Structure formats: C-alpha cells, structure tokens
C-alpha cells in the first residue's frame, strides 16, 4: 500500500531523514516511533506531499507520488502535530469548508459531515464555534477533517500530543474505530507504549534512520536478548527445575513460591518446544507465560536513550 525507499531530507548540513525505508501493508495500523527530532514529522510531511525529499521515493500502490500529486491528495489524509483552526467558524462550517476543498458536491456534504462527526463523537457540538471546543475536541475535529475525502491512508502525526489522559483515551477509542473502517493508518508518537497496544506494526526511527520494524512482539524479541518466562506447575516443581536445566538457551532458573521463572534466548518455536517437553514429561502445568518486557526500556535501548530535542 505505502512504500518508502531510501528517503533523504536535508536541512542545510543537517540530515533529518537519512535513507529511510518503510513499508506499510493495506489496512494496518503502523506506529512510527522515535524520540523528538528523530525525523518522524519530516517523513510524514514528505508522505503528505508538503515537503520535497532530497532523495528516495514514496510509492502508494506502486505509483511514485511525485509523479501524481492529485492521486496523493485524494488517497492521503494528514493530521499534523501542531495545527490551527478557524475559530470564527462553527464545527459543521469548518467541515463544510474542507469538503469544498476536495470538491465534494454540496448535496453529499451533510451526510458525510454528520457521519464523521459521529465517529469522532462531536455530533452534539455541530453548531458550536470551533473556538469553544476543548483541545481534545479540536484534535478529534481535525481528525474528522482529515477523513473528509475518505482517504485510504491516514497519516497522523502525534495525534495525542498535549492531551490530558481522558482525551488521550477518547482519541485512542476513535482510532480503534477507524481501524475497523479499512483505513491504512500511519501514526507517530515518541512514546512506544502509547502505540504498542493499537498498532499492528511498529517502526522505530532515530537520527532519520529506521532502526527496527515489525510487530511489537518481533521488535521485543529483536531487542530483548533474554525473555523471561514464568511456569506455574500444580506440583513436581523439583522435576520441572531439573528438566529446565537440561533445556538449551535456558538460564537464571528461579524457584519462586508459586511458580518457576527462567530466562530464555530464542524465538517462539523454542518456547513452544520447552512447554511441549514439560507437559510430555508428565509435569502438570497451570500456566506458562512470557513476562511482559518494559517497552520504555526497550525503546530507550533502541534509541540509545537519547531525546534529541534539538534535531
């Protein structure tokens, strides 16, 4: 659906995006994560056609967007990290204006606007002035605006930035709802856990380069050398520990009161092999699960613990 190859963008001597490659499949929610100044906004602006790349290409459905900007404008909906609104317009007038900029016929606009305001839960504010909306509501209105022309790809640059916890949750709910509408969503954030639960894929960017990409589990397995697993047997705990000691890539076996934990270096099939062996040895298992890694730690590890505010 969306593919970026060798994207480069320079501001003078500073290289904001440095040969970035990215691929997003249709219908997925792609989390674009990186510290401040990593190159997320620049990349997204290039995707949206607001910035010219110094190198590389952006393809939508295999077509280079620089060769067909009309196609790009129709297929992409973009919501920037910082934006303004027309405070003298009412909510429905604001939406009507953007419907006009996409040449949507007058007779079709009311239905489209009503539907979108319902999705972002602003139907009750339809006749209110935009100025009177809260920050969270303005964010949701902006999201509705970016959907006015029914784009296939939605590019959202830090949509939850500056929102209070309640507004963040509301925004998340809206995004989850959008994912059911068969939209391909690229969403950026500098907070990995914020995206982890809603994204099907994640790309981690730093210094303009893609450091890692894949599902959350894949990224965690890439970065976490050791996975911590907890087994809770009904009994035969001693036999379980003995068996684990014989297993390859297993270490740090700890006898806790109700369960046994161990560290493991390997992939999912290796873990499955361990469980199969434990069960086949007649050890009754109540639970077998991998202890969740700390996403913040992983993110810091991947990005070198930097927060490049100046970039």
């Amino acid at each position, binding site marked *: 659906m969306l593919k970026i190859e060798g994207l480069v963008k320079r501001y003078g001597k500073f290289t904001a995006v440095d040969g970035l490659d990215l691929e997003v499949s249709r219908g997925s929610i792609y989390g674009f994560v990186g510290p401040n100044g990593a190159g997320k906004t620049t990349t997204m602006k290039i995707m949206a056609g607001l910035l010219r790349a110094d190198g590389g*290409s952006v393809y939508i*459905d295999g077509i280079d967007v*620089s060769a067909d900007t009309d196609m790009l404008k129709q297929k992409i909906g973009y919501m920037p990290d910082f934006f303004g609104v027309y405070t003298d317009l009412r909510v429905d007038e604001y939406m009507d204006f953007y419907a006009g900029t996409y*040449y949507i016929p007058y007779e079709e606009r009311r239905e489209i606007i009503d539907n979108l305001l319902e999705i972002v839960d602003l139907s009750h504010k339809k006749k209110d002035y935009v100025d009177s909306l809260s920050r969270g509501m303005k964010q949701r209105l902006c999201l509705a605006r970016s959907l006015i022309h029914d784009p296939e790809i939605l590019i959202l640059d830090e949509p939850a930035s500056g929102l209070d916890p309640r507004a963040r949750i509301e925004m998340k709910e809206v995004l989850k709802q959008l994912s059911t509408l068969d939209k391909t969503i690229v969403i950026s954030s500098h907070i990995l856990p914020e995206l982890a639960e809603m994204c099907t894929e994640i790309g981690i960017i730093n210094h303009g380069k893609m450091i890692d990409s894949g599902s959350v589990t894949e990224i965690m397995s890439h970065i976490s050398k050791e996975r911590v697993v907890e087994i809770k047997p009904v009994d035969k705990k001693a036999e379980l520990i003995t068996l684990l000691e014989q297993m390859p890539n297993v270490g740090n076996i700890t006898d806790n009161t109700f369960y046994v934990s161990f560290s493991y270096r390997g992939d999912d099939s290796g873990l499955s092999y361990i469980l199969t062996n434990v069960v086949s040895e007649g050890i009754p298992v109540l639970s077998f699960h991998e202890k969740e890694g700390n996403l913040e730690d992983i993110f810091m590890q991947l990005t070198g613990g930097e927060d490049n505010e100046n970039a």
Partner: protein
Amino acid sequence: MKMLNPVFRKDMRVLFRNIKVYIGLTIYLLILVFITNSILKMINLNSYNGFNPEYVMGAYLTMLGFQMLVITFVIPAFTSSSISGERERQTLDFMLITRMKTFDIVLGKLMSSIMLVCLMIVASMPVYAVIFYYGGVSVINFLFNTVFLIIYSAFIGSIAVFFSTIFKKTAAATAVSNLFVIGLSIGTATAAGTIITVCSLVGVNDIARSIAGIICVALISLNPVVSFVSVIDTQLGSDLTWEFIGGLLDSSIDIPFLQVWHIVLIMYMLVTFLLLKAAAINLRPIKKSGRKNKNIRKTADPENN
C-alpha cells in the same frame, strides 16, 4: 452545480462575522459623508446664478478619489494576511494538502478582498444617491467607476496576496505591500522620467523613441495617480494623461481608439493575473522545478502490497 471557490466562501463567512469590518465600514462612511457634505455646501455657497452640474461631477470624482485612497491602503492591510495569516494560524498546511490548486487558493483570497470593496461600494450607495439627486452624474459614470474600482482593488489585492506568499509574518507582508504601492506612485514616475530624460539627452531616433514611449506608457499606467486621472479624463471628456505622456516624450503618441484608461485597465488586469500566478507558484509546497525524474520509478512494487 458549479461550486463557489471554497476559500472565498469560508472567508466571506468569517468576514461578515468580524465586528472590525462593520466598525471600519462605519468610519469609512462617516468620512465619505463628511467629504460629500462639505463639497455640496461649497457648491451651494458658490451658486449665485443657478446650479452648475459640473460641480456635482467634481464632488462625485472627489468621492472616487477618496475611495481609491481607501482601497490603496485598506486592501493591502486586509489582504496581506491572506496567506501569511493562514501560516501563522497553522492552517496553511491543511489547505495545501487538499485538492485545491494553489492558484484557486490565492484567487479565493483575492476574491475576498474584492468583495470587501464591493461591500464598500454598496454601503456608499445612499451617499451616491444624494449626488444623483443633484444631477450631472449618469448611471454610466457610476458603473464605469465601480468597474474601475473593482479592477483597481484586484490589482492592489494581488500585490498584497503575492507578498503574503513570500513573507511568513503578516506584519512584514503588510509593510512591504504598502511600501510597494507607494513605490508604484513614485517609482513608476521616476522610471518613466529617467527614460524620457535619457531619450532627450542621447537624442534617440524615432523607433527608439516609440519603444521608450510604450515602456513609459506601460509604467505610467500602473501609477495609481495616473490611473485616477485617466478615469477622470474620460468622464470629463479631456485627454490630460495622453497629452502629458506625449508631451514628456516630445512626440505625439496617438493610437486610434486607445485611451490611457484602456491601457490602465489592461495593465492592471495583466499584472493582477501575473502576480496571482507568481503567488500560486510561491505557495506550492513542492515546486515543479524540484520534481524528481518523473519518467522513472513509476512502479516500485508490482503486487501493490
């Protein structure tokens, strides 16, 4: 159904909700009434032997001059925020990613400025009605001047829109627009004067003199003062501007069927279009010249993912 320019439609909504517009309009009307009243009083004082309709035409043309003056300074102040204001408000990016062409965006902004002038003209109607009551001014005069004012406001507005696409700050765009308009009055006259002086000193032949004449006429026609005089000329039946330019060049420029106000309007419309085109190019987020090899890399992934 043909759609109205969305930018113009939105700006009109915002414009008519802005209390400052009504305050400004009221001040403008009060000044217009004061000027008209003062002139009419003077006419009445001087009319010992009946009423001279030419004085009314004088009063009417004074009103036109006042309106031109207002347009010259109010339109740049109003229009120079058209694009830079969107940028400052952080709404420009939204507009640029839509399907609207940048030319349509700047055209919509210019149309909003022209609409403000139309509002001024319509609001002035009762004052004009007083003038019409005295006679001496025809409806044709009124329509002619209205068309002239609209074309003039488009010209002045296009200057402001152009600078609004260049400068990020509205204050800078307004200042430069105003300076440019003032410069038009002084600069064009200076440039034309320099050409004439050089022609006289060097003693050029007739062909060179004709070319110099055309350049001078083109420059002078952009001068707001000259354009105002040319419009007065045609309504008073005089030919001051032609004689002035011809006299300066020491040659008789006489193009049949072509008067200075024709050239003025043609030049205004031409420059307005060119400035809008330039503004539209300035506004493009990705300039065409910077486009990468458009004939290659058409397909990256045959399976389209």
